[in-house]
């Protein structure tokens, strides 16, 4: 019983943010007070992305090859399939850099969580909330900038609805703004947290039951592979929904 108790805490401890970075064969690295482990992961991911696009990506290549081709395919996908389709041609093109940054940042953070040395910053609601906040900012201020304040108000007043119903509908629509971004935050955070919890639980079975539970390691490996897919999927969904929500606010008549 006491083992299971410890295991539960051990798993939860591994999922939450801390001030220590556990390194293999070394004593845990104490982080300064202003920087937590997940914060460190954010900075590492950002530096990795800058290095990736500044040094690995070959901008001068007339015909892209290998890794450049892969990155470019993703950028084109974000531009054509996410930004332009959801927001429109002109605004979509303008929003592409933001959506690209979002996609690659979240993807890198998700994938980093699968590498044993690193932690999953996207399993922290503060991180996903902060990212969803940018979506909210674009949904509010982007729309005001683009359509004016009246245009922004129009987004909450669907055409052809009787005035009486508007009294109920407008607050719901307004609340929807925050519900949508809140759902965005929780979806990413919960997915990443749950995936890791399942892996830890599978591996934990070995600690609880001994060698009998060895097949669960294989299962954990399989879920690890699924997690790679989910890392891409969640980055895609977060980016796509951001684009869709912004598109809905920019073009309320649709």
């Amino acid at each position, binding site marked *: 019983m006491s083992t299971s108790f410890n295991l539960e805490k051990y798993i939860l*401890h591994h999922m939450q943010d801390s001030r220590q970075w556990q390194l293999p064969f070394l004593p845990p690295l104490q982080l300064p007070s202003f*920087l937590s482990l997940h*914060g460190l992961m954010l900075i590492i991911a950002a530096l990795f992305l800058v290095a990736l*696009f500044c040094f690995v990506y070959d901008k001068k290549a007339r015909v892209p090859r290998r890794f450049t081709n892969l990155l470019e395919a993703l*950028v084109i996908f974000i531009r054509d399939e996410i930004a332009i389709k959801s927001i429109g041609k002109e605004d979509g093109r303008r929003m592409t850099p933001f959506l690209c940054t979002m996609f690659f940042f979240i993807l890198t953070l998700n994938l980093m969580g699968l590498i044993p040395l690193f932690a999953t910053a996207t399993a922290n609601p503060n991180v996903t909330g902060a990212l969803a*906040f940018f979506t909210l900012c674009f949904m509010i201020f982007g729309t005001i900038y683009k359509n004016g304040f009246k245009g922004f108000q129009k987004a909450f007043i669907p055409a052809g609805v009787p005035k009486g119903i508007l009294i109920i509908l407008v607050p719901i629509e307004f609340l929807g703004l925050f519900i949508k971004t809140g759902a965005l935050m929780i979806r990413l955070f919960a997915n990443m947290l749950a995936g890791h919890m399942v892996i830890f639980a599978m591996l934990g079975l070995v600690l609880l039951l001994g060698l009998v539970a060895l097949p669960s390691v294989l299962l954990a490996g399989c879920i690890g592979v699924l997690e790679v897919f989910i890392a891409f999927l969640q980055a895609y969904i977060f980016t796509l929904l951001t684009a869709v929500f912004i598109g809905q606010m920019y073009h309320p008549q649709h």
Partner: protein
Amino acid sequence: MTNAVVDLSAASPAEVESSLLNPDVSMVVLTWVTFLVLSVVLYKFAWNPILKALDAREELLRRSVEEADRIRQELARIQETRQQFIREAEEKSRAIVSEAREAAAIASAGIQHKAREEASILLANARHDIRGETEKARIILRQESAQLAVDLAARLIEKNLDTDANRRFIHKLIAEV
């Protein structure tokens, strides 16, 4: 790893669980700062040049395809013109050959006609010559035979023998002649 478990044993599970959802302003601010800095840096060094390069490449591709189409049409046109030239040249050469053949036929007919005429003239001349020569030969023969007759007669008269003897003599003479 065991250290972590031991350290945590003091905290209650509810406390640990709640810490998963704890709002952490510094974390939020750090995420904003990181994301904003990353956005600016990537916009400057990655997205802007990449998207521009992509647009340029798409434009280049579009123009290249158009250019290729244009060149293909041009080639088809050139091919058509070439075929036209070849056809015209063939027709012209055929006309030249048939003209030449006609001219040759006319020329050969003329030559044949002329040759025939010349041949007939030559034949007529030859006939005329032959006739003349024959006439001459006849005259000469006549003169010689007369002479011979005169000679024979003279010898015959000189001998003037009987008829049998004359006949034998004449035969002898003829044999001699």
